[in-house]
């Protein structure tokens, strides 16, 4: 439940407009209201954004893990509650589906000289979002513990991860050598999506919105997930990515597949975890079966500007975000994230995600109905992991829940 605490803390601390001297040379007046996810790398971006506030330009930030649930209703009203939505490739489609974000071509032409072509997300010829960092889940391993257990090379497949976990447990080094973000809901579904992407099988029947996950590949994924949970803390269903990364810092875990954006503090030898950090090794996410695709779907994080706002606010918002993701960000905080900003040189914390990209990682599916599939997965897989139903029953349940939602939303008849 850190989620709710963060929400309220973020609401208390940052929802108030921050008035300070303008540092970023924006002369336009306006109101900039930013809705963003809540993790370390985005804190750095938001810090720079709020520094632009002046007497005539107000900047307010709401950073919350609930941002995906808030964004559609908040941007549907006119004027929209937020002028900027900080999104990722998976959270952009719901906004596009409803036409809630505006084309940025004019703003990019006027204020976007700093952007590289890679940062520009173009849909149907129009610029709909600006990306500034890459993210995805990849493998974290503790070199010292693996060595102690007599494992010479870092695991590259899930089967090897399981073998290594068994070796660590049987030698009494750690009872629960694995961790993962298995909290029911979005995070549990993301674990499935990562591994299923690695199988190379499609989520939907080609060209339709009909689900296709109740297949051999789906069963393999579920069986692998269940096998992994045997080596996780018995509370694994209430552990999300933030808790998992704390457990890593506390030295309770030997291997985990976790977000690249959380790597920075965990490998910082001068930071909070001086004993753990030097032994933390980042590699590509493990592969599943013969497809050779790392089980960590690739994400980009970026921002879009709401449709239902005045042109002044849109221009002010765009300029504030341009300052927030200026090349200075990458030079000031080179280990903050894997930036997609001009002048960024990948550092140690980006090794894992770069390995995902170079070993054939695939992007998170951006189909308009993928979000419904993700929600259905998050709700329906729990019973299987708790041993109350078979893998086929669980997958049939996911498909049925998805179908019910997709019919109501008008994607299926």
């Amino acid at each position, binding site marked *: 439940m850190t989620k709710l605490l963060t929400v309220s803390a973020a609401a208390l601390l940052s929802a108030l407009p921050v008035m300070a001297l303008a540092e970023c040379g924006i002369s336009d007046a306006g109101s900039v209201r930013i809705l963003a996810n809540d993790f370390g790398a985005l804190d750095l971006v938001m810090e720079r954004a709020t520094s632009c506030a002046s007497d005539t330009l107000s900047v307010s930030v709401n950073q919350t893990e609930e941002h995906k649930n808030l964004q559609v209703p908040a941007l549907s009203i006119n004027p929209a509650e937020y002028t900027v939505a900080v999104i990722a490739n998976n959270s952009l489609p719901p906004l596009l589906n409803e036409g809630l974000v505006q084309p940025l071509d004019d703003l990019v032409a006027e204020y976007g000289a700093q952007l590289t072509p*890679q940062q520009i997300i*173009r849909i149907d010829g129009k610029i709909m979002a600006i990306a500034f960092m890459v993210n995805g889940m990849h493998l974290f391993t503790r070199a010292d513990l693996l060595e102690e257990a007599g494992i010479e090379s870092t695991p590259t497949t899930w089967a090897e991860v399981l073998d290594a976990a068994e070796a660590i447990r049987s030698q009494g080094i750690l009872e629960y050598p694995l961790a993962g973000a298995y909290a029911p809901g979005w995070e549990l579904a993301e674990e499935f999506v990562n591994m299923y992407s690695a199988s190379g099988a499609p989520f939907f029947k080609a060209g339709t919105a009909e689900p296709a996950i109740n297949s051999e590949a789906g069963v393999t994924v579920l069986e692998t997930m269940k096998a992994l949970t045997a080596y996780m803390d*018995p509370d694994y269903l209430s552990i999300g990515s933030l808790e998992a990364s704390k457990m890593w810092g506390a030295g309770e875990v030997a291997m985990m597949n976790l977000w690249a954006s959380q790597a920075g503090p965990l490998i910082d030898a001068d930071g909070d975890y001086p004993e753990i950090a030097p032994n933390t090794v980042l590699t590509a996410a493990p592969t599943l079966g013969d497809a050779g695709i790392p089980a960590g779907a690739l994400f980009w994080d970026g921002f879009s500007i709401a449709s239902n706002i005045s042109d002044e606010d849109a221009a002010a918002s765009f300029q504030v975000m341009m300052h927030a993701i200026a090349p200075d960000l990458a030079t000031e905080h080179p280990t903050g994230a894997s930036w997609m900003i001009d002048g960024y040189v990948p550092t140690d914390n980006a090794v894992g995600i770069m390995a995902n990209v170079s070993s054939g990682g695939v992007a998170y599916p951006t189909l308009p109905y993928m979000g419904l599939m993700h*929600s259905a997965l998050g709700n329906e897989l729990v019973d299987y992991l708790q041993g109350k139903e078979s893998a086929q029953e669980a997958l049939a349940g996911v498909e049925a829940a998805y179908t019910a939602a997709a019919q109501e939303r008008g994607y299926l008849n």
Partner: protein
Amino acid sequence: MPHKAFAWFILPSALAMILFIALPLVSIVVQSLYIEHPQVLTQVESCSPFGGCTMETRVDAAATAALRDAQPLGRFNGLGTYFNRSHLATREIATILKDTDGIADSLRRIYQLPFYRALLFTLCYTAVVTPLGMLAGFWIALAVNRIPAVLKGPVIFVSLLPMIITPLIGSLVIYWMVNSRGILGNLLQWVTQDPTLSIAASGPLTWLTLFLYGIWIAAPFSFVVFYAGLQTVPQDTLESAMIDGANRWERVRFVIIPHLVPLATFVALVQLMDNFRVLEPIIGFNAQASATSLSFSIYNDLQAENGQLFASAAATSLLTIALLIVLLFPVLIRTWRDFSRKSAH
């Protein structure tokens, strides 16, 4: 009171009730009958940092919005939403009953359906927490009634504490305590000598925790009402019972309880409604893996990141109301009987 004066007197509340209860109810009934228009899908070229430019399926937002503007309510779906898998799931149940391996297997499979899973927990929670919460409140009231006047103030304050704490915060606090790293969770592991014991990982223990939490939070209301009721127990009846040789239990059983029955009916009514809409503890305890309630389903439908499922939420709301009416029926009949008996005197 003359009819005209009465009409004027009641007008503000009647207006408020129409505005805030009747009209929303009508709107919910209407919304539950409609689903969204078919989304207009197109293939567009989209360019992203990974994989370059590809043709992708996207929603044609303008065309879909035009459909919506023409018919804002959406497509008429009749009672379809009520019978789909997320609600009564009639088709799924028919299939389960057709190819079943016995009653246990059918029940297990029906329990996998979201509505029935939520229903079972909601009913169990209501059935356990309502009587036990009232009993706990009654017991506290009897105890407080007997302690010296100096202690009464502090004891009443402490007994009301669960009511003062926001349910969400209260459940969060207890969640951290019973978590396997928390003080109570650790104690439990130590007592049972089982390091793998975890309340969050065990369905029955999660239910038990939620029930105990529910009783803890429900007791103060019953306590306040019963404590007030105790002050009205006729002293001479109590004294004559004492002269007749009734011990303390008999006085409670034959004087106090009959005197408080009408109050108990009222408390039961309020508590039934309160417990039937249980939501906060499930969120506070992160318990959706083993317990969901009808209110939680509604919350979940309205929280969806892809936009809210209004029809689904409306259908669950109406099914909840229908069930609540069934559940309250005995209590309402009782209240009505009490009322007509009194007015007959």
